[in-house]
């Protein structure tokens, strides 16, 4: 069963829909686990066999609102180019099966692009343009239009009336819960469109970047890959391997954002990153002092 699933790229939506007290889910997973062990021992003798990593999650604190959608993802290996399923992890529907609000994703992308942008375009006004202090010709008698200065906006070479004035900031804050919803929507979109993978950890066997290239080609991951771990310090091998590849990027989970997730075709999270993200996002969705997140944004706020 697992060999067939290894070949296809589809995610499995289980028939069992409930998540809490997931003994039934585990039981079925463990039965498949035993089948895996017996079938895989003949396949690849050089890779050490370990029991499958079945990772249910305890959602007692944050019981899902969508009671019907349970989500699970395969945990894949990083020790070889060929894909091998190492286990299965449970995903909370409020984070990974939320309504895919593409309009809010668009607002997040726009905000990320604009809030840091400072426009340095600058034009001179009629007061700043050199010259133009004297009345060019008398008020009356010339047959020409009346003017007070040769640098008024009407003149060629004159100042600009309502032009850009540098520096102009375009800072604004998107409402807090729109940003949270942007993250949950993007994660759900990635999972739904098969661009989401979970790996056990970021340890790879060599420093060779060819390994990463072969891995991406073998598993049909998109040209660009975003690898997210919990900590900002990654192991040596993956750092050397991805250093010269501009399209494979490493990121800690605290800096996950919608722009990076959509910029890279494939999103790869480690188990620690999945747990960290779920814990943070679910906390924001259920926090007691949510009213504090509204109100004016202060630059020194926590």
């Amino acid at each position: 069963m697992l060999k067939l699933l290894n070949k296809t790229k589809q995610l499995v939506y289980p028939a069992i829909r409930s998540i809490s007290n997931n003994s039934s889910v585990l039981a079925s997973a463990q039965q498949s686990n035993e089948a895996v062990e017996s079938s895989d021992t003949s396949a690849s003798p050089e890779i050490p066999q370990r029991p499958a990593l079945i990772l249910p999650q305890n959602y007692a604190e944050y019981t899902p609102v969508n009671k019907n959608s349970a989500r699970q993802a395969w945990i894949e290996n990083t020790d070889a180019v060929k894909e091998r399923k190492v286990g299965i992890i449970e995903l909370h529907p409020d984070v990974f099966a939320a309504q895919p609000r593409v309009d809010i994703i668009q607002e997040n992308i726009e905000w990320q692009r604009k809030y840091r942008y400072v426009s340095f375009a600058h034009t001179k006004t009629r007061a700043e343009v050199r010259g133009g202090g004297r009345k060019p010709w008398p008020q009356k008698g010339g047959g020409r239009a009346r003017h007070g200065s040769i640098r008024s906006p009407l003149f060629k070479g004159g100042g600009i009336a309502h032009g850009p004035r540098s520096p102009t900031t375009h800072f604004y804050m998107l409402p807090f819960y729109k940003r949270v919803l942007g993250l949950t929507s993007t994660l759900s979109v990635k999972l739904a469109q098969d661009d989401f993978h979970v790996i056990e950890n970021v340890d790879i066997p060599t420093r060779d970047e060819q390994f990463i290239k072969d891995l991406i080609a073998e598993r049909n991951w998109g040209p660009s890959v975003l690898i997210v771990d919990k900590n900002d310090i990654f192991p040596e091998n993956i750092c050397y391997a991805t250093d010269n590849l501009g399209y494979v990027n490493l990121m800690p989970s605290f800096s996950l954002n919608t722009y990076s997730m959509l910029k890279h075709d494939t999103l790869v999270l480690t188990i620690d990153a999945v747990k960290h993200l779920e814990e943070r996002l679910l906390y924001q969705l259920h926090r007691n002092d949510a009213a504090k997140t509204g109100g004016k944004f202060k630059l020194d706020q926590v």
Partner: protein
Amino acid sequence: MANLRESSDKALKLLRTLPRVQIGNLRPNPNSKQNDKRGRAQHGGDKHGAGNKGSGQRQNFMRLGYETGNQPFYLRFPYEPYYKGHHLRRQYPPLSLLQLQVLIDTNRIDISQPIDIATICNSGLLTLKPAELEYGFQLTDHGLDNFKAKINIEVQHASEAVIAAVERNGGVIRTAYYDPRCLHILANPKKFFQKGVPIPKRMLPPQDAVAYYTDAKNRGYLANPEEISKERLVLAQKYGYELPRIEEDPQYEMLTAAKDGRQLFYGLEPGWLINLVDKVIVKPKET
């Protein structure tokens, strides 16, 4: 369960057939963007809504309130008696008995402990703004008929009917005064503990509030406890209910827990310093 296709499930299933969501694929909601460019030619352009000649087109408007020369309305009256002393008037934002009952039903407030400003603000649903002269909460009578909870509550103002409603259910109500500094502390105790400042002493009420807080009818915290018991009996007779005996209640200790007139928090004395990180209390030595 199988026949319920949630909108999110439906949308996510639909997305599997659509192209990958990318930055170049997204567009804003229809009609959410306004064109910032100025109009040109016939529609939106030409005179740009400014009309012909006059101060309007010449963008030389009269200031707001100007009445073309006569004394304007906003300058006719040098003072208005209605706002005299407004900066000294204390405000008590209302907390209705219905709201309180909902908070209790949804487990946002724990009634096994005494309730004061800190408890109400910690629920996250009500805030106190002492900077805007809000001196605490007043308990109002909306939802009085359906109030059925035995609580030990301390507010800053309560009417007779409200006091009767609380005492009828076997609870205890008290009105107490907090000075502005203490109000800021109570509105956010965690923020205060993080400052590393010792707990201050509560100040006594100002002169115009002393009469209210020393009156047993208002269950004032400075009133004589014997008079308070007498008034409890009086109210029971007036409103026609059997006064529950608190002494026989298993929660007697909780219901009779009261703060001293100079105490800010239950159980913690002024002068103590709370260290949340090391979970330690620094107490001044008795000299």
